[in-house]
């Protein structure tokens, strides 16, 4: 019997679903062993039945052994969907950093809903101002939540998006009824760059110029970007983007620094505090950081990012 799998996306971007498709040939292989019973991006299963005549207050999702959910929880409908998935599915997998830590959409937690709506429906050069939409659309919750702030999560697969190797390992393990083997270290632990460790750094620069590297040489010949004075969040970010075949961290392959998309190394860690500590202990002057809350750009749920106070006057 194939393993029955349901999939839903909440406050998300569909990149996690594309990462599933990026299993490529592995996907065809996997499809022989799992049965997708609900997955809006691929399959026409409907909440209100094939004739659209079900009770609009009681959406339906089929029962499944595994429920995969991408995205955080931003509005009441997403909250209901998350709860319904929890009821219908045996094991809940939080897929992607939005689901595990809020992800990029949780940056909105620095603003109130009133500020967001004011900007969106009554601001900007192209918008004809109008009242906030309030018919049919689900009311917003007060902020963006990670999945486990509302339902119990059994398996966490962070990454923005997660590497297909980890998706394959998780699904294969679930099919085989064992615990998946997932990465535990930090991005730095998977990074081949040269570290000399001598802290002569006093500032971190903004991303305005190229680091030094010889493009004809492999990454293992490039000096660590943090040691070159660029903000790189490898030390405080969970490993995984390099996949299971000993590739380099993805951003480093492009010769740009890590921005933390796999979330903290320990699931409950705080990427901002950890990074500030790492920088301070190396003698970096923290005033040189252009956007401190931006260190939480992938992990702003769990109450970490909060509405900013009203703008301060310049010079303060």
């Amino acid at each position, binding site marked *: 019997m194939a393993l029955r799998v349901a999939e839903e996306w909440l406050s998300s971007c569909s990149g996690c679903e594309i990462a599933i498709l*990026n299993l490529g040939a592995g996907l*065809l292989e996997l499809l022989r062993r799992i049965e997708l019973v609900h997955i809006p991006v691929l399959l026409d299963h409907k909440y209100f039945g094939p004739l659209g005549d079900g009770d609009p207050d009681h959406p339906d999702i089929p029962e499944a052994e595994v429920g995969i959910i991408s995205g955080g929880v931003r509005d009441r409908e997403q909250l209901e969907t998350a709860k319904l998935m929890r009821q219908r599915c045996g094991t809940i997998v939080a897929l992607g950093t939005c689901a595990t830590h809020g992800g990029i959409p949780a940056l909105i937690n620095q603003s109130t809903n009133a500020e*967001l709506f004011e900007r969106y429906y009554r601001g900007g050069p192209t918008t004809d101002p109008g009242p906030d939409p309030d018919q049919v659309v689900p009311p917003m919750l007060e902020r963006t939540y990670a999945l486990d702030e509302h339902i119990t999560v059994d398996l966490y697969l962070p990454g923005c998006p997660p590497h297909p190797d980890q998706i394959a390992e998780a699904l294969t393990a679930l099919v085989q009824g064992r615990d998946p083997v997932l990465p535990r270290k930090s991005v730095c632990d998977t990074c081949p760059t040269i570290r000399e460790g001598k802290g002569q750094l006093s500032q971190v620069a903004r991303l305005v110029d*190229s680091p030094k590297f010889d493009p004809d040489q492999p990454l293992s010949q490039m000096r660590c970007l943090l040691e070159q004075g660029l903000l790189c969040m490898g030390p405080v970010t969970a490993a995984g983007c390099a996949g299971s075949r000993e590739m380099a961290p993805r*951003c480093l392959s492009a010769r740009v620094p890590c921005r933390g998309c796999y979330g903290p190394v320990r699931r409950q860690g705080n990427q901002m505090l950890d990074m500030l500590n790492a920088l301070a202990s190396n003698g970096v002057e923290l005033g040189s950081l252009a956007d401190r809350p931006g260190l939480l750009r992938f992990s702003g749920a769990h109450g970490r990012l909060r509405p900013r106070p009203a703008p301060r006057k310049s010079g303060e």
Partner: protein
Amino acid sequence: MGRTINIQPVTRIEGHARVSIQLDDQGRVTDSQLHVMAMRGFEKFIEGRPAEEVPRIVTRICGICPWMHHSASNKAVDACFGAEVPPAGTALRELTQVMAHINDKILHFFFLAAPDFVMGAGADYQVRNIMGIVQAAPELAERVVKMRQAGQMMLEKFTGKAIHPVAMVPGGFAKPMSDAERRELLDQAREQLEFARFCMDYAKENVFAQLDQAALELGQITTGFLGTVDSESGTLELFDGVLRLMKPDGSYHDFTYRQYADHLGEQVVPWSYGKFPYAKSWGEGLAMDLDNPKGVYRANTLARINVCDHIATPLAQAELEEFRANFGRPAQSTTLYHWARLIELVYACERVVEILEDPAICKGAVRRPVKPGAGRGVGCVEAPRGTLIHDYTTDDDGLIAEANMIVGTTHNLAPMNMSVRAAAEAVINGGQVTAEALNKVEMAIRCYDP
């Protein structure tokens, strides 16, 4: 007492939408809406952030087309900072953005749209999907999956990250391309071009040949069109050019990115989180009345194929000529979005080959340092789903003071609502509501690949 039909989730699209169709006592369609059910607020939460970080943040607007946001955003930041991108940097940006178009079109045509045609609009939902195609046509499915995967891996191998890319940076591209990389990619790109020709032949034989009048008229509406063309030659452009807004009668006006807000407006409606763009410069407001629409234009493939004068690559140009000979200019049939999409697939493959054939892409600097400061920048590209506009204003420190974006899909919100209405009226006549009829309403939406 009438009743309401609710189709949710709208499936095989990107994002969260619901269709409501209101019926009267006799089962006649009295009204319908396509609701955008979610919002995240990127314009708000990038405020105050260093502009050079933003091209790595706004990618998360869409995981299917992150390369589009990445490139439009980088262009906008370049303009804010007064940065000049060296020629090889620009070539690498165009190359990767157009490569991403290729993967996207394969994904949409085969994974999202084709099940309706290959398995049939009325096939059981459990087989009317890519898994059904895998069962019914395993060789085709294997080839499609392999080619799409190869396309993703081409981007990944060169840039590290295909979903939510990081390789474009304000001032250029983060790394140069070696000649060996160029030659390897060129071989693969030629294979993709062969595959694109196969897709076109396959679709003509198995999909387009079977489009009867009813299929061509499904969700048909009469609107204007928006796309990007080369400022001098009027040829189709995906990466850079001027915006062209065409009226339903085929007359048009070209304008620069910076002028977009003079021509486009957005209206707020009470039943959708998405705002409705319209052609403000036509001076007639917005009305989604099927018989007498006002201010409604469409974007995405059919729009680009309609607004361009020609296509600069030979195979796609031949396809364009055949298309125009059959359907005229502008073509209005919504179903023809699929055909136009495959013409663009051929163009994108030819363009990638063309760019890679020129060894200049490997020569000279790819990036220049930028200096954060005050400015305003409007960066646009043609995304698979339509013209993408990122408009940023920065303060003296180069932090985002204000941001405005119109993303591809939203241009089509008014047209999609109209197509839903037209399709619903056509397939639910006399109150017979079947699963097939409702799928046909969704097929009208899927043409727009939202």
